[in-house]
C-alpha cells in the first residue's frame, strides 16, 4: 500500500478535528510541518508518534504520544492548543495574541529507552 501523502493526511485530520469540535492550526506551514514530522516518525518507527516528543521506537511505550496523543483534549481545553500546536480550538485560531507555550504533561520517565 502506498504511504499516505501529507496532503491526504491533512484532509483526514481536518475531518477528525471537526468531528471533535476542534480545528487544525490555521498556520498551514506549521501544520504541514507537523504532519510531515508525524509521517517521518511513522517511516522510522512504524507508528505516528508526536513529532514534538522524543519517540522511543517502542509502540507500546509510546502509546500515549501516538497522534492524537492522550494529552490533546486536556491541552486544547486548558490552553486552546495541543502540545505541538496541531489541534486547536476555534478561539485559539482566531486570537493569535492569546496564545501561550503549552507545557509538557507527559511524565518524564516515559522518555528513557
Amino acid at each position: 500500500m502506498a504511504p499516505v501523502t501529507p496532503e491526504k493526511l491533512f484532509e483526514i485530520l481536518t475531518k477528525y478535528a471537526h468531528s471533535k469540535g476542534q480545528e487544525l492550526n490555521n498556520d498551514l506551514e506549521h501544520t504541514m510541518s507537523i504532519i510531515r514530522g508525524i509521517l517521518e516518525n511513522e517511516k522510522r518507527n512504524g507508528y505516528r508518534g508526536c513529532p514534538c516528543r522524543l519517540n522511543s521506537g517502542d509502540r507500546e511505550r509510546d502509546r500515549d504520544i501516538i497522534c492524537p496523543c492522550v494529552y490533546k483534549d486536556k491541552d486544547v481545553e486548558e490552553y486552546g492548543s495541543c502540545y505541538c500546536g496541531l489541534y486547536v480550538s476555534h478561539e485559539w485560531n482566531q486570537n493569535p495574541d492569546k496564545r501561550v507555550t503549552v507545557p509538557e504533561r507527559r511524565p518524564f520517565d516515559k522518555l528513557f529507552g
Partner: protein
Amino acid sequence: MAQITVYALSTCPYCKKAKALLKELGADFEAIDVDLLPKDEQNKILETVKKFADKCNPKVNPGFPTIVKGETIIVGFNEAKIKGLV
C-alpha cells in the same frame, strides 16, 4: 564552543523555528537533534535536559526545544525569550 546550545528534535516544527530564529539573529549556537543520536547518547542528553528543566523557576517538565545560554534556560519555543537571549 558555541555560546548557545539548542537541544532539539529533527521532526519538531517549534525546534525548527527556534533554530531559524537564532540563525536570523546571528546567534552563536549549536543545535543537537536528539532523535538522530544513538539511544545511549539520547539517554545521557535526556538527563542533561532534565537538569536544565529542574533549574527553571518555576520548575517545568523537560521538553524540546531546550535552549541554554550560561545560566539562562528556555524550555519550549518562545520568540520573545529567544530574542532576549541573543
